[in-house]
């Protein structure tokens, strides 16, 4: 089963939710469970679960379940990123790429950035 290696970056304060890391590498199987489960078992190649191509919506949940170290409600709200967070796919607003439905490709660069308001 093929794997995806993604460069995931955080900015504008979102890094505080992920151990202050600005950049991480995430390895995901190209096919993930249709029920959006993110545990090791479900991500095994030989799981009995139904599969779908890994998309951005899944990545958001995976980050929340597996890598978030601070309060989840400051990252995810109603199943997607909370208001005030922009998601960028290879330097393009995810709205132009289908938002959560965007199917991840190997080597994609995904950025989660919080809007700034100070001056």
């Amino acid at each position, binding site marked *: 089963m093929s794997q995806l290696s993604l460069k995931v970056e955080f900015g504008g304060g979102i890094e505080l939710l992920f151990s202050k890391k600005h950049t991480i590498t995430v390895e995901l199987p190209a096919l993930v469970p249709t029920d959006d489960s993110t545990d090791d078992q479900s991500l095994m190649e030989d799981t009995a679960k139904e599969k779908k191509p890994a998309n951005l919506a899944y990545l958001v949940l995976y980050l929340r379940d597996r890598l978030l170290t601070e309060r989840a409600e400051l990252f995810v709200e109603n199943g997607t990123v909370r208001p*005030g967070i922009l998601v960028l796919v290879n330097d393009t607003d995810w709205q132009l790429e289908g938002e959560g439905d965007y199917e991840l490709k190997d080597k994609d660069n995904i950025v989660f950035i919080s809007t*700034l308001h100070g001056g």
Partner: protein
Amino acid sequence: MSALPLLDYQRYGRQMILDGIGFPGQVKLRKASVAVVGAGGLGCPALQYLCAAGIGRIGIIDHDRVELSNLQRQILHTEETIGLHKAESAARALKSMNSDVLLDVQTVAVVADNARELLAPYDILLDCTDNVPTRYLLSDTAVALGKPLVSGAAQKFEGQLSVFNYGANGPCYRCLYPTPPPRETVGSCAELGIFGVVTGTIGNLQALETIKIILGLHDETPALLIFSALGTPPFRSIKLRSKKESCLACGKSPRIPSSTDYVQFCGGPAPDWVSLGQSSGK
């Protein structure tokens, strides 16, 4: 086309010989009017370069007063102007640099009740403010008045820059952020801290975008510039969505009531974490 005063050829000669500016460009700058909302970390450098370039009329809108803690980044204010209104302090500095520019000093807060009237006289609006409610208010007002909004923001070591409500399909602030962030994710400069050169760089670039719009040199592509002072690379340009049909402000069926309480919309007044002694940074 109106003539330029003779001294203007001397003063602006270095930019008038540039391709894309020239005599007609200088006349455009002189005829332009710009409102800078916020004379703080972003507003000071933006005002400085707009005024130096010879924009005809500049509105300086800020109801705050200069404090010692501002001087680390708000480079138009001085030790002597501590206690004065920032708009007044900024105007003094600008006047000494370029007495030809007409400066409108407005020492009032921009709120829903006065925003349209305050901003209507200007061609382009600059958002150099420091809080979320005012950012929504300025965007909605820019949409209502049909004017571009050059929006800068800065926090800690990071900055962001966009032009909203500009060009055929340019988004507004609400297209990007239909819902305000949760109140608790929003800190102030006092709580979060701010690096002076970040506001300086973003403020400079706000002046640049403004001048490009005036001169017709802006390519109108919706974009977000992200600046990370400690990052490698420090700058990154993002391609943004177009205007959203569903946007409450600039979409097909706008429905922002004119009396929106922007502070309540954004989760209520800011708790003063600093004086409560709960600032994480202190």
